[in-house]
């Protein structure tokens, strides 16, 4: 440990630690637009400049290592004035349409301009003109609003190992774009939306489905059904001022009914259904010499990643559709039949923590010809927007429960929201499927937590099963490379595209900190602790679905509706 002097106070720092992190730990706020904790500092935005005694120029604190005895002034007139000038220069090339921007009120550039007291346009000049990229089904890019901080580029490359985008060109023509500056839809982008979560401005947003959903709700001929994913109920509250991890499942269900949805279903039900199918598939593969390790297929960004980057692993992917799509299929088939409705009258909406789900819903595998099983996907953020738009008060809603036949879920299904949850749910049920008995202790602690890679060995009736859980595609790459190199002790691998799982998905509330992700995860496990039914195979509604409609897991009907195959995708990688 070393000591530095900051604004006349002494502050402890690690040797070689960047100034910004030491300052933050000491509770000193230095603003920044380009810094991401844990990733390579780029020093791109220069907002975090501070004055260091003995240095002629201001230094970017995010990329300047602390040294013993260093004397720093974080808010000297010179530093603050430099920050203001930088913001003024950024604004000189930024559209003045804050009122129309999706990030209005939630924009770091706007906040900074306000904090630094920017009250007039000091620099006027030509603005760089750009075209919108709305080619992607998940993510819309408006390069005019981009301030070239490069956070999206770093997340895409360093966290996800996708590197779909990079800086193109130079100087005043520089911009962010894909290889050969083509649309995001034909690039190697996996639609995860992590870039949206780090974008300080409105340059990256989700492709909104709000209008389509409101139109459907307004259409008297449509029966509008909605499902909500396990990770949404523990994050939606944050949009309305609740602390991270507050579970608003009951109030959200009530709110969705007030919005006019005819039926409210819980994707956790479909997660339980997924476990029955996927667990049976795993057991079948192990017993019949099928391709192992089996890889989970719930996370649509991950699926596209395998199709583009690791096509040799396509046969390792579970053939199970994701819970969203299983729910979509049983809604338009079983539910429609049960209610005597033509599937075309049903408008099926899902609330997801995810932008890739928008892409998944439009995949040709996920429906019947031109009729998709899921008609629209809203992110957690979009749902919050609709709730505010309709003047509903989430916090004052009574707790209500979801509708039959797909409203009942077990806590195993709920755990799908966190990295490791699918694995834990699968282990609980696989044990039962193989031995006919429940596990003595249902908790599988080795697969819990926020580590990017978790591994465990599970003994089921003498069968030694090797499992791994990874989140963040960069971590998945490392594991797949080990398997390519000959590693063979693993049977089942859960992969979530986003680090931490769906609770940190690309459709979740903006400005999420790692503490918030931790709290959300804790909330899911505390639900698991408190409720009585904790295994998917004890979901009574799932049992009824099998008895009345599907027959049994991996039946012909299941294969037709709940399973699919993916194929190699040619993109520039």
């Amino acid at each position, binding site marked *: 440990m070393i000591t530095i002097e900051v604004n006349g106070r002494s502050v402890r720092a690690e040797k070689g630690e960047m100034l910004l992190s030491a300052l933050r730990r000491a509770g000193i706020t230095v603003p920044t637009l380009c810094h991401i904790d844990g990733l390579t500092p780029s020093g791109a935005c220069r907002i975090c400049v501070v004055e260091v005694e003995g240095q002629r120029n201001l230094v970017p604190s995010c990329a300047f290592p602390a040294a013993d005895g260093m004397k720093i002034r974080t808010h000297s007139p010179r530093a603050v004035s430099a920050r203001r000038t930088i913001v003024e220069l950024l604004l000189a090339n930024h559209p003045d349409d804050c009122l129309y921007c999706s990030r209005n009120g939630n924009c770091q550039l706007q906040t900074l301009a306000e904090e630094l007291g920017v009250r007039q346009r000091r620099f006027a000049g030509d603005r760089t003109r750009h075209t919108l990229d709305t080619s992607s089904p998940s993510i819309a890019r408006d390069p005019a609003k981009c301030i070239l901080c490069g956070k999206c580029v770093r997340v895409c*490359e360093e966290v996800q190992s996708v*590197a*779909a*985008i*990079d*800086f*193109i*060109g*130079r100087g005043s023509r520089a911009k962010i*774009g*894909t*290889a*050969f*500056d083509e649309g995001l839809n034909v*690039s*190697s982008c996996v639609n995860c939306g992590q870039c949206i979560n780090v974008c300080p401005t409105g340059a990256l947003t989700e492709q909104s489905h709000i209008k389509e959903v409101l139109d459907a709700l307004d259409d008297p001929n449509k029966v509008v059904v909605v499902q909500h994913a396990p990770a949404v109920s523990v994050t939606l509250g944050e949009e309305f001022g609740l602390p991270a991890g507050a579970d608003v499942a009951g109030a959200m269900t009530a709110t969705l009914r007030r919005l006019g949805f005819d039926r409210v279903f819980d994707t956790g039900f479909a997660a339980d259904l997924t476990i029955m199918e996927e667990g049976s598939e795993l057991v079948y593969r192990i017993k019949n010499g099928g391709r192992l390790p089996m890889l989970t297929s719930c996370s649509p960004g991950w699926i596209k990643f395998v199709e583009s980057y690791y096509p040799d692993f396509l046969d390792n992917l579970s053939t199970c559709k994701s819970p969203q799509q299983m729910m979509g299929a049983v809604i338009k088939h079983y539910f429609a039949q049960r209610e005597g409705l033509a599937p075309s009258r049903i408008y099926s909406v899902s609330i997801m923590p995810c932008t890739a789900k928008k892409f998944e819903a439009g995949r040709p595998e996920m429906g019947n010809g031109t009729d998709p099983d899921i008609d629209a996907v809203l992110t957690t953020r979009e749902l919050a927007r609709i709730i505010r738009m309709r003047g509903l008060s989430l916090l004052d809603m009574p707790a209500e429960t979801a509708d039959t036949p797909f409203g009942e879920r077990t806590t195993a299904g709920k755990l799908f929201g966190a990295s490791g949850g699918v694995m834990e749910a699968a282990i609980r049920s696989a044990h039962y499927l193989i031995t006919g008995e429940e596990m003595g202790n249902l908790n599988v602690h080795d697969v819990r937590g926020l580590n990017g890679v978790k591994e465990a060995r599970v003994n089921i009736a003498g069968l030694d099963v090797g499992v791994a859980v990874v989140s963040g595609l960069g971590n998945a790459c490392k594991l797949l490379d080990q398997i390519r190199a000959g590693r063979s002790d693993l049977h089942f691998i859960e992969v979530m595209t986003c680090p931490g799982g769906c609770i940190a998905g690309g459709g979740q509330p903006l400005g999420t900190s790692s503490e918030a992700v931790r709290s959300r995860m804790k909330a899911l496990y505390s639900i698991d602790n408190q409720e009585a039914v904790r295994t998917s195979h004890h979901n009574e509604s799932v049992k009824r679905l099998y008895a009345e409609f599907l027959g049994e897991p991996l039946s012909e009907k299941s294969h037709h509706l709940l399973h699919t195959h993916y194929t190699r995708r040619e993109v*520039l*990688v």
Partner: protein
Amino acid sequence: MVTVDLQPILQRYPNASRDALIPILQEVQEHQGYLSREAVVEIGKHLRLPASKIYGVATFYNQFRFQPQGRNHIQVCRGTACHVKGSAAVLDTLKRELKIDAGQTTRDGQFSLEVVACIGACGLAPVICVNGEFHAGVTTKSIAKILDSYRRKATPNDGNEAA
């Protein structure tokens, strides 16, 4: 689509890392005339770099192009003397006439456009160079005539082989 075997070039850079990117790009362009999508992918595999990164680096420099050169390659001097004598307007007019940007090739393959720094003919400013032939004192009005003279040189069957 013309496929060019890049292996002879890449083999000269065994176990290369990203430091070798620019020399490789230069050699490939020398060999192929431009950087094709296939070339970018192959270089990416060799250096284990994503295509977006290679495209990003290549677009940083004026020297790299991503379309084959046209039969008539126009270089517009943007050196200081030419600038003072109005080369910016010359470049704008060329772009408008040909309906392409610098670095691009017309769809019929007739013309390609490149911006170059001083080509050492300051006395002739503003100057453009077509297929190695210098045109002195170019004005926005004389451009149409210069382009026409090259169009006339093209044989009637020229358009077919470009397809």
